[in-house]
């Protein structure tokens, strides 16, 4: 370990995983930041999207567009199943139902009985094949302006598509929140009864917001699995908690907050790891290398607490958008 870890940290800025987290957080921002829905099951939406994509492309050999469509449809259906019964209940009920539903998904796909389709606890490998087949980039390894950040054609392809999707999602949210539709859902966040008294169907708007954010979560699940294999245990409750940290870091009711939050989250994780390893190698820190993993997550947990307490609007948020404090 040497100065390379700094390049590793900088590389996080383009990383497809960071893009996936940003995309999922944009979905969460629609739910929590703009509509005020307490969705603790975003990991479930990612799992549903990821599995729908991987199952249709690897096991049933669907074309690429079919798999993407399957991920979108699956996330929509999941949102309807969750939303229709629970959106009429109080906010904290939705949180418990969504977190439970996400765990139900994770435990169900893990079970060996369904492993013909879901791969059981081993997950599914090779979902990126159809995706890489349409890669227009020439074969080879390309560096970024002479830096040590060199990736091959497939690694560049997923980075371009992943961040392209993030940019599209940002644009969509930016436009939506300036539309009449956006004003209604922000109204629901501020005062549901006031919106209802204006003759709006609050329930229908909430369902629409849940579906929209859920579909972004599902697409994030696809971007998440393309550079790696699909593992059911990646979709635990912890993933949702990380997304909340990212959202609150950038600002819960902002368009670009999730992008910046996700980059800061991952760069910080990467830097802490590098610095800790450096300190251990130099003999400055009385730790072993296996202990750096836990320390990073202690930092995440403490950061989440401090953010909510001292800067709940996040880096970009405005105090007036702060419905939940």
């Amino acid at each position, binding site marked *: 370990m040497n100065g390379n870890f700094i390049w590793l940290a900088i590389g996080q800025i383009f990383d497809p995983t960071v893009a996936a987290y940003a995309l999922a957080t944009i979905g969460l921002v629609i739910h929590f930041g703009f509509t005020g829905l307490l969705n603790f099951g975003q990991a479930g939406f990612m799992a549903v999207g990821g599995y729908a994509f991987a199952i249709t492309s690897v096991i049933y050999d669907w074309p690429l567009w079919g798999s993407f469509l399957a991920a979108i449809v699956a996330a929509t259906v999941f949102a309807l199943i969750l939303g229709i019964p*629970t959106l009429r*209940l109080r906010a904290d009920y939705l949180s418990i139902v969504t977190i439970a539903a996400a765990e139900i998904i994770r435990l169900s796909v893990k079970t060996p009985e369904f492993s013909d389709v879901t791969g059981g606890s081993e997950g599914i490998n090779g979902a990126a094949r159809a995706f890489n087949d349409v890669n227009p980039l020439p074969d080879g390894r390309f560096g970024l302006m002479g830096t040590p950040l060199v990736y091959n054609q497939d690694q560049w392809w997923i980075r371009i598509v992943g961040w392209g999707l993030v940019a599209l999602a940002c644009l969509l949210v930016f436009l939506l929140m300036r539309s009449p539709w956006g004003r209604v859902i922000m109204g629901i966040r501020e005062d549901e009864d006031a919106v209802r008294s204006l003759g709006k169907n609050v329930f229908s708007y909430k369902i629409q917001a849940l579906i929209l954010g859920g579909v972004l979560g599902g697409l994030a699940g696809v971007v998440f699995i393309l550079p790696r294999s699909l593992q059911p245990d990646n979709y635990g409750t912890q993933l949702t908690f990380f997304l909340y940290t990212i959202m609150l870091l950038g600002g819960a009711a902002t368009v670009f907050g999730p992008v910046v939050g996700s980059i800061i989250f991952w760069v910080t994780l990467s830097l802490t790891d590098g610095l800790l390893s450096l300190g251990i190698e130099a003999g400055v820190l009385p730790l072993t290398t296996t202990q750096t993993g836990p*320390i990073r997550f202690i930092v995440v947990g403490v950061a989440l607490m401090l953010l909510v307490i001292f800067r709940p609007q996040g880096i970009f948020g405005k105090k007036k958008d702060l419905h939940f404090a």
Partner: protein
Amino acid sequence: MLAGIRPGQSARLIAMLIASVVLCLSVVLGGSALGASAAETTASTSTATEQSILVWVRTDADKVGVANVSVTVEGEGGTETGVTGADGKAVVPVSEPGTYSVTIDEDALPAETGYPRPSTNPAEVEVFAGNTEVPAIFFLSPDNAKGAVAAPTDESTTTPTPGASDEAGTGTTTAPVTADTFWLRFWPQLVTGLIFGLLIALAAIGASLIYGTTGLNNFAHGELVTFGALMAYLFSGIIGLPAIIAIPAAMILGGLFGWAQDAGIWRPLRKRGLGLIPMMIVTIGLSLALRYVFVLLFGPDRLTLPNSTKPFLVIGSVSLKFTDVAGAVIAIVVILGVALVLTKTKIGKAMRAVSDNRALASASGINVERVIRVVWVGSGALAALAGVYVGYYQSLRWDTGASILLLIFAAITLGGLGSAYGALVGAVIIGLIMNLSTLWIPENLKFVAPLVLMIIILLVRPQGILGRKERVG
């Protein structure tokens, strides 16, 4: 606003509570007796062994079964041998429940498939009464040396992901259910379910009281449970104190932990006027941080409390360890104690008053902050006891509490948010559903059944089973 009961109802409720505990006990005892007769009838009609171990030899690389490997199973029921078939599996019947050591013959293995992972041959397998096809899986790889022992793998040490192993379970694969085997499997599951329900109840009552008095959904409640389990491990596993000292010590430290959390975090935040949803997100942050502090201090591996796996009470197909029985008795006594405190003492009545209507309680001279402090201390101690109990019941790890957190939530939602008695009823139902569901659905899905039930209950009766009807929408 939500909690429990109006004072006039207290006598009726305590009677109800005692009745339900008596009912549980009688179900257990009666059930065991019936189980006994069922066991006798099967024993007389067939001589087949009730237990078996499924040995499965596979290659690490492509998970293909390896045929013609001889397998030896040694343990209480004597020594049995078998040979793996074309799919790499061999089912070895064993006559007695207990711990078995499963060995595969490494000399007979073809060199190209390689040898088992280090320290996995022989494998220890625990077989309980009525368990069939308890898995013992060996992965072979040419990378492994023959007869290799040592080198704890670093798979799980870098960044452990939670929930990886607890739910996976080491359970049985569902055997074809016939009338005889159904009841043979029913009674042990019923008893295990009741015991597990009591365990969840200890933690759920505390979580419910915290919700009732402060409105907080405490996502860090699982860490109170883990803390208790780890303290018990510290005192009895590392220092070597007897359980009778280690368990109360863990409870006292758990209470202190609850006190420290309230004094250090929650009271200052309440004073700042932080809303309930941000406060809930703070509990999530705390839960993440504490979880990994536990990894840092105690390591990522599974820990076990000194415990004897010998059956202590065997009635028919139900076989219980000493700690199962003692734990159940202690849990019932503690729960009755909590009920007495809630109904008969001044502080208990104050707790219920605060849960019912905080402003009114405060106006009538109750020191609300003091009541909340007591609730946190009590919840910490109860959760710690639950943790100790989980440690004895299976094993413990840094994420033990986190893995039962959703079950705790399911229990308090099922019973009616904020009601202590509801939490008890909900927890027992959760325990029963979880274990009885394995009679029909795969063992791996047993965590799913109570969560599905919770969602269904929320749809038809959002206030929970014992919750008072109010506007929840």
